[in-house]
């Protein structure tokens, strides 16, 4: 503590504090700033990079290698659908769940108990900017993760990727809507763990069960009807179905519920969960528990 700081304005006469400016513009500007801050910190965190970011990549590799002899279905032309091809959409959907819900629920619960949120609560950061930062972090890391998965599947495991632009258009809206919904649900779920230490224990079982019943690790078409119906309540089933609709050949639609990709259903389910997540967040999110 050595160098003196320069004072602005005449000494003694304190300048009138400038206002913060237009709330909306400020919220967006600081939200974008938060995205940069969050993404940088995310990638410096070795354990999240491995367990959240690279996890689907690792899983796709394991599935592709372990089941390299197996054929899952056949295309209309009689080509085999390899394990890598079959599991690529599942892992993309899992990535959306991990980058959003699992990552944020654990991350925010930890920030709540380690004092980060208390510090922010004392600053003029709008809470919505904080959310934009977190959602943005999920989108950025989710997109990077998807790119890595696609590259890996295409180059190493020779999975044929769709050529029609319309399919990539479907992929874009489903992926974005999915990752944003997943992120908002993660923010809402962060209210549940009582401490940062218990967050993993609360969140991982939820995401794990969802992945098993939603057709990520197990073939959805093999699950009993009642379990398929249970899974249809939750967003991950729809996300996985959407990814299959983009990356699997059209003839495999016969394996889906009602033998339909049901795009409107996907949009509706994800949108309903998004709104539910927003409402829950509005009701439960607090920078700190004021009475603690």
């Amino acid at each position, binding site marked *: *503590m*050595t*160098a*003196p*700081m*320069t*004072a*602005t304005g005449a*000494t*003694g006469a*304190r*300048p009138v*504090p*400038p*206002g*913060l*400016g237009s*709330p909306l513009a400020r919220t967006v500007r*600081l939200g974008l*700033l938060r995205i940069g*801050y969050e993404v*940088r*910190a995310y990638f*410096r*965190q070795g354990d999240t990079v491995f367990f959240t970011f690279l996890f689907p990549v690792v899983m796709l590799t394991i599935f592709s290698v372990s089941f390299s002899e197996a054929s899952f279905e056949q295309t209309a032309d009689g080509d085999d659908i390899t394990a890598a091809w079959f599991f690529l959409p599942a892992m993309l959907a899992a990535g959306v769940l991990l980058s959003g819900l699992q990552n944020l629920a654990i991350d925010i619960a930890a*920030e709540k108990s*380690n*004092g*980060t949120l*208390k*510090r922010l*609560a*004392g*600053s*003029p*950061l*709008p809470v919505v900017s904080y959310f934009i930062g977190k959602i943005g972090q999920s989108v950025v890391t989710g997109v990077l993760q998807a790119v890595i998965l696609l590259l890996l599947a295409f180059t190493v495991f020779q999975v044929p990727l769709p050529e029609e632009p319309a399919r990539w258009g479907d992929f874009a809206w489903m992926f974005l809507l999915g990752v944003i919904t997943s992120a908002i649900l993660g923010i809402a779920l962060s209210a549940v763990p009582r401490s940062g230490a218990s967050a993993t224990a609360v969140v991982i079982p939820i995401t794990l069960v969802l992945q098993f019943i939603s057709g990520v690790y197990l073939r959805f078409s093999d699950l009993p009807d009642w379990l398929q119906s249970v899974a249809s309540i939750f967003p991950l089933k729809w996300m996985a179905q959407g990814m299959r609709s983009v990356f699997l050949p059209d003839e495999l639609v016969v394996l889906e519920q009602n033998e339909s990709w049901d795009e409107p259903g996907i949009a509706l389910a994800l949108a309903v969960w998004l709104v539910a997540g927003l409402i829950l967040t509005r009701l439960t999110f607090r920078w*700190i528990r*004021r*009475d*603690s």
Partner: protein
Amino acid sequence: MTTAQNVVEVRDLRKTYGDTAAVDGVSFDIHRGETFALLGPNGAGKSTTIEILEGYRRRTSGEVRVLGADPERAGLDWKARLGIVLQSSGEVGAVTVREQLAHFAALYPNPRDVDEVIGAVGLEEKAGALIRKLSGGQRRRVDVAVGIIGRPELLFLDEPTTGFDPEARRSFWALIRQLQGEGTTILLTTHYLDEAAQLGDRAGIIASGRMVDLAPIGELGGADARIPIVRWVEQGGVREERTHAPAAVAAALIDRLGGEPEGLEVIRPSLEDVYLDLVGHEHADDLAPETLTETRA
């Protein structure tokens, strides 16, 4: 309620947890540009009071005005005028000192220059280091830096120099004097009474949630508290006398005892003595000085 001169006004503030009162009817004002020290033993209610003023905790009853607003209802414009250094710093994500300060600077309408603040807390060499890799005292300096980056009108410092080495403490004092020179109003808690004496204009001493004294630092404990004490040993017992003329008392002793009095001391009560006197009665039991004396004897 807040007048032009008062940045903080607290009336009969109370905060209870269950049926224990952490703050039990505290009242004080802080004038614009003043540094007010809140002193008291562990668990006295200092942090509870500060955190109520910062808007972190709800009060059970009483009236509070901070920069003209009720902290429980104040918005972002109000927060932009405050600087907060909490007692416990908590953790920070994987960001460097400079990134953290630049980020917080961006949240305020008229922030200080990031590099100047880094210099002011003596962290130039650590500016590019991850905060979590700093030493405890260095991390505490980052807290102070974050507290002042927004050029606050009112700065809350809850035991800011915990873990500072002596040199860092001195330069922290210089920094605070500079902020005072710029007109910043400061509420400071500390267990270092020399720090309170160096920086504070007025002080409130709280013990068990109650304000036991409130005065300019030099006048705490009342006019008599700083009267020198002459102490000596006579017939195996310690005697003492409070007097404005210690030399005359000592001279009279020599006359009376016919020689040099045994164990003669002249004590000018320091702020610490005055403070211990004020909080002493309430905590004499906790500290059990009798037991200590007995073991020594």
